[in-house]
């Protein structure tokens, strides 16, 4: 080989080495963004639950800019798919993972990743790297039930529900109590879809309820399909967990919605400053964590005023929907007069243990 070519090659090699060195050193000088991941049970744009979390993620990203790198994984089923997703996120350097659905995380699972911080929505297990968060949606679901009760002429209300777990059961109960406040003696019929997000099943559930006599439809599931059906059937509709008015502009009454962003921001900041601690956060209307979505045209001024009055009472503590006397479906007294249900303690008479339906709810608490 010609000496000049050898020389040129050596120079080129030196240049490459120098360049690589320069690049790596500049990379190490730049602050690496803190990596936060969100795992959704449905699509990020489901028009419901997962979309509300996605808005929370965007809120964090906007507030912290280049200091954080956030991502989401959508349509992740509980179980093996979830485990694989976490494994790959951890491998990519994600340090804080928000698992946004019931049943994703267990103590044993998070123990496998001691250097990663986990937060789970709607659960109860806590360890030093697993925190739980949710909020008093039952309060706002109760208020949305008031709108449904006021809109019902016959007192027969349908409610589309996903899984027979305490979270859903207490929402169904709160909804029924709200409806009965405005329409004494109102009944709430349940149809279970056994899915958080399934537009086809939710539509069929709503249709079944309406053909069976319901004149208002509410839901605890995530898609707006029941609302689209209600719009076509000219039946008032109460949504859940996102403002879905555009899917049913005439039928829309309101919905209990979540604002996850501020909580996420607080926790991400804490994790970045190494001040993150496990905990059990249960947000309230006062915190701005839950609220009612803007009303649709079917809610009268009188109803709005009454809902506003009860919202004030809920905030100042002079009213609580799960305060005794509360009767179950068979008419048996379950919670004695004056007793307030606690979040975690009290077995089946706690918010997180409730497995019975209040008087006036028609359907099985076992799905």
């Amino acid at each position, binding site marked *: 080989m010609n000496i000049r070519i050898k020389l040129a090659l050596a120079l080129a090699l030196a240049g490459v080495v120098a360049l690589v060195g320069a690049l790596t050193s500049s990379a190490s000088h730049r602050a690496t963004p803190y990596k936060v991941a969100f795992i959704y049970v449905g*699509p990020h*744009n*489901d*028009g419901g639950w997962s*979309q509300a979390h996605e808005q929370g993620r965007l809120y964090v990203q906007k507030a912290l800019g280049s200091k954080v790198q956030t991502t989401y994984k959508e*349509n992740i089923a509980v179980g093996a798919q979830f485990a694989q997703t976490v494994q790959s996120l951890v491998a990519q350097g994600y340090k804080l993972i928000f698992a946004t659905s019931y049943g994703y995380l267990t103590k044993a699972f998070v123990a496998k990743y001691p250097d990663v911080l986990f937060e789970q929505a709607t659960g109860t297990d806590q360890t030093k790297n697993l925190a739980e968060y949710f909020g008093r949606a039952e309060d706002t679901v109760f208020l949305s039930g008031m709108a449904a009760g006021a809109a019902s002429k016959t007192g027969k209300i*349908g409610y589309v529900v996903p899984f027979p777990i305490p979270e859903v059961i207490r929402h169904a109960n709160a909804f029924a109590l709200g409806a009965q406040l405005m329409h004494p003696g109102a009944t709430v*019929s*349940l*149809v*279970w*879809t*056994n*899915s958080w*997000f*399934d*537009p*086809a*099943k939710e*539509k*069929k*559930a709503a*249709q*079944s*309820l309406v*053909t*069976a*006599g*319901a004149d208002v439809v509410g839901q605890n599931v995530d*898609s*707006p*399909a029941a609302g*689209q059906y209600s719009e*076509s059937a000219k039946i008032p509709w109460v949504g859940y967990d996102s403002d879905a008015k*555009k*899917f*049913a502009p005439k039928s829309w009454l309101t919905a209990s919605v979540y604002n996850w962003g501020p909580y996420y921001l607080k926790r991400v900041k804490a994790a970045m400053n190494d001040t993150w601690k496990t905990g059990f956060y249960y947000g309230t209307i006062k915190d701005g964590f839950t609220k009612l979505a803007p009303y649709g045209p079917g809610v009268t001024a009188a109803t709005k005023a009454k809902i506003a009055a009860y919202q004030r009472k809920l905030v100042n503590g002079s009213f609580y929907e799960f305060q005794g006397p509360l009767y179950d479906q068979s008419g048996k007294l379950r919670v004695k007069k004056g007793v307030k249900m606690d979040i975690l303690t009290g077995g089946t008479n706690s918010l997180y243990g409730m497995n019975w339906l209040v008087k006036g709810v*028609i*359907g*099985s608490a*076992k*799905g």
Partner: protein
Amino acid sequence: MNNSLLIVLIASGIAYGTPLLYASLGELLAERSGVLNLGVEGMMLVGAVMGFWTVQRVHTSAGIALTAAILVAALAGAVMASIHAFLVITLRASQIVSGLALTIFAGAAGLSSYLGNDLNLSDAPARHTFHAVFPASMQRWSVIGPIVFGQDILVYVSWACVIAIWLYLSRTRPGLNVRSVGESPAAADTMGINVTSYRYAHTLAGGAFAGVAGASITLAITPQWVNGITGGAGWIAIALVIFAFWRPELCLVGAYFFGALQALAPQLQARHISLGPTVLWTNALPYVMTIVVLVVVSSGTARSRLGAPAALGNAYAREER
């Protein structure tokens, strides 16, 4: 009366069975020409997303937008089917492998999902949807009101399609040719029938029907776009073709039966009729029925006795034995 369980089940069985009917008619055409296409689910999803896209983006009157959407969905389904046709007819690849690959490529984790995200179609209702054609007063007529007059145009068109396909296959010369291509392509070839073009034409037609089936979901039943909105309907449609002994009129019966089956679980719950855990009814029943049908007809003798095209699943190469 019109809200009694039986009437509601029949009426909603027709409505929910219509996508199944379109998809199974398409699959029937392809299979009658000897091409098994397991890509129905994928083709439906691409049709569903493209039909929905058309309605969202073409800003004209409802009638034109919906017609355009159906045409675009049919075209999209046919384009998907052309991949399968090229692989199995021209390249003589395994029909089963190619069909499965098509569903994976186009399906809930593939092209349809990419298009839905890229075209930003989620989180908005369809701008136009198919509504019941007849006036509300007619829909209130006893019994036939909800069943016959409570349906949208896609349902009536599907009835016309059933009759047309039945006449085509049983009463016309090209229909006879299709059947001979599906039964014995070598004999058909000897008779001067162009096996390749018949198989291409019917595979593409099958794709077009699957595309329309998908659009009927996103524009009539649940007028929105979400990933995987067909929820396995394509697989049920494939089973339906067997269930219907490869006859279009029985596809209609089967599709409506499966449609009614999907409506049964929520109806029973809403009417407070308890038949065990609902998870069984809501999630499993249509699929259990599909499996039962497939198991029953999967043996070779049962298939030929039930009227399966003899050359179904086999590639044809002239002078090869």
